[in-house]
């Protein structure tokens, strides 16, 4: 019986991986200055959320969790397109893509 327990990892393990990935992305988003790298960190966090969806879909035996991840990927692709467009237009005006350059709204 012990061997059976070893053969199948508890699905919670995937939740812990997703959690670590999400926190990594959050740290990067909060501490990097390059806007493009910050954007990559957002992608990391999105992927952590996707992994959580897939894990719950498996735990509950419900395929809808995977269908939702499919839609999340579509939205993420649209988000990347618009976000990179914004980054390009920031670069046109400021000739730099660090976050502290875009400080016009600072009080």
């Amino acid at each position, binding site marked *: 019986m012990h061997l059976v327990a070893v053969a199948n990892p508890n699905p919670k393990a995937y939740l812990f991986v997703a959690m670590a990935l999400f926190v990594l992305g*959050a740290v990067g988003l909060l501490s990097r200055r390059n806007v493009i790298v910050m954007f990559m960190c957002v992608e990391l966090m999105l992927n952590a959320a996707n992994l959580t969806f897939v894990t719950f879909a*498996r735990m509950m035996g419900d395929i809808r969790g995977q269908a939702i991840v499919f839609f999340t990927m579509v939205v993420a692709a649209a988000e990347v397109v618009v976000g990179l467009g914004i980054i390009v237009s920031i670069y046109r005006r400021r000739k730099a893509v660090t976050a502290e350059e875009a400080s016009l709204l600072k009080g």
Partner: protein
Amino acid sequence: MGEWIVLVLGAAFALLGGLGVILLRHPVHAALMLVQSLFGVAMLFVAQQAHFLAAVQVIVYAGAVVVLFLFVIMLIGVDRAEDIRVEPLKGQRPLALFVAALGLVELIAIVAMQNDFGGVLPKTFEGTNVEQVSAMVFSDYLYAFEITSILLVVAVVGAVVLARRAPRHIDQTVDQQIDGAP
């Protein structure tokens, strides 16, 4: 046993890649580490029988999205390394780590204490994974699927408008622009 191996390998890929994204100074290196991380997540999808999503993950994320990132990095010429020793705001890094540690503790507490996720033993789906996902997307989520096409068109139009150069003679009237006056 096999699933353990895939789990450990995939988690190592994903987390080391994530560390690389946030620690490497060069944006191109960060993008390449992002590929590794996304590939690790795809491995974890495979380990959980989400075969369709794993394929889409590799094609859409590791393929299209990261290529788009690299394209923009090359286009605007930020192939110079960022000096990550400079702190953008005073005390931002420690504060970021503190907030992240707080969130981590919270998440660990939630997941570790909660045991009723609707069954801990992994259940296997009937039929192939691709058939199941497509049956769900094209029946229950058909309207959402159609609306995503609108979303993609809006995103493409928005990107074109954002990346367009500003018109050169912004102070011209419409008639002057039509006549082609300088």
